[in-house]
């Protein structure tokens, strides 16, 4: 049986995620945000794994902050629904894979905080490439030795794409840094057992041109079994 991977019907590279999940041997299942947090348990009961894709900024109130002027696009219903999904998946020991906003949301779900705007809060390199070149690798990341992510790629240096202005600031209890950009921005986190993992870049846009990134989806599927 193909493991069922739940993800919300995001606008951010949804087709690409679906392709990658199918290619890695999973069955994508769309979760409507309108169902709300109260249905999160019913969904997770019926799923084998969870993917949290990219999208809006996380509402700063959720980690105890007011928004800086550069934070404009937030959607509270989506935050609440996905946070409930993440917490329920973790409670049921089902694997969670976060991408971009997904990494940030996983971190917030477990008690971490975010850099609200990299350009004004300390980023030294480009973390946002043009919308028309999603498969271009634009900066490097260094994988932390001994992490599950390091093991997955079998090397310490990767080149990745970048579409974000926010990032993980304080890593949540239970998570650890698995990759950093040269300017110190956290590019990947994971739980000790590796069942929760997340990256700041967009592997869904890279799998066709650079197939090694499909390993992340294969990992999610493996963890479902």
């Amino acid at each position, binding site marked *: 049986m193909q493991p069922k991977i739940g993800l919300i019907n995001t606008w951010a590279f949804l087709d690409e995620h679906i392709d990658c999940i199918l290619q890695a041997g999973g069955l994508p299942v769309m979760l409507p945000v309108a169902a709300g947090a109260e249905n999160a348990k019913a969904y997770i009961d019926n799923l084998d794994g969870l993917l949290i894709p990219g999208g809006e900024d996380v509402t700063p109130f959720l980690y105890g902050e007011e928004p800086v002027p550069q934070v404009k696009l937030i959607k509270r219903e989506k935050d609440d629904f996905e946070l409930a999904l993440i917490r329920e998946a973790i409670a049921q020991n089902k694997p969670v894979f976060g991408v971009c906003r997904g990494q940030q949301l996983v971190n917030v779900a477990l008690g971490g905080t975010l850099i609200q705007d990299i350009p004004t809060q300390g980023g030294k*390199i480009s973390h946002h490439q043009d919308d*028309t070149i999603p498969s271009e690798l*634009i900066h490097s990341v260094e994988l932390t030795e001994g992490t599950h992510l390091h093991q997955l790629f079998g090397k310490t240096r990767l080149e990745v794409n970048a579409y974000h202005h926010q990032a993980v600031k304080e890593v949540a209890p239970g998570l650890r840094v698995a990759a950093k950009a*040269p300017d110190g921005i956290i590019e990947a986190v994971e739980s000790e057992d590796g069942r929760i993992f997340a990256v700041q870049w967009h592997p869904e846009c890279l799998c066709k041109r650079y197939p090694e990134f499909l390993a992340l989806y294969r990992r999610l599927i493996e963890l479902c079994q």
Partner: protein
Amino acid sequence: MMQPKIGVVCFVSNKVNNNLYGVQATYVNAVLAAGGIPVNLPVTDHLEFIKTYADLIDGLLIPGGEDVNPLVYGEEPVPQVNYMNRTKDLFEIALVKELIAQGKPIFGICRGHQIINIALGGTLIQDIPTQYTSNISHLQAMEIRSELTHSVQVEPGSILHEIFGRDTIQVNTYHHQAVREAAPGFKVTGRAPDGIIEAMESQDGNVFSVQWHPECLYLRYPEFGGLFKKLVEKASH
């Protein structure tokens, strides 16, 4: 003598149409006006075809375009660098090396000027406004492409000097990156008043490049057509 075939590297755009290969008519028309036969070269990952492409043409024009991906020359991108195409970088670098190996001439414009420099071991300023102290504009409005907006000091004895016949010219300007250190074996033949490198040429003069856009100028200011004529003339030998 037969008219020489001048390769013109295509751009790849996802903006207009998914994966559209194209070339600005201004480059094609400038080559035609100079007496060359333009041959458009599509950018692909198939570097095994580079030799065949180089065999096919007598000279190469590398047009303007994206930023060169800084990872290609061992740097991380500064925040202002966000539009590039590594496939194109690698294609053009391989093409530059093959044409030089075959002794065929190359003329680089803007990005072309920069990629030649990277292909041969030079370095770039990634973003002039944030990395270089300058009090002149290197980015004029897109609507006034044939307007001359800053001056360039021309090195006596250079190809550039031969073409323009004087020490100071005025040019248009559309770039936020620039050559930092010229590649070994290259001499700087033009500089803006703020010191930005505006033109280079190889010792043998077979490879030459400019930071401005002569293809937008030659109709209004015919002397800029001299650059394309120089390429065609070298390609005819």
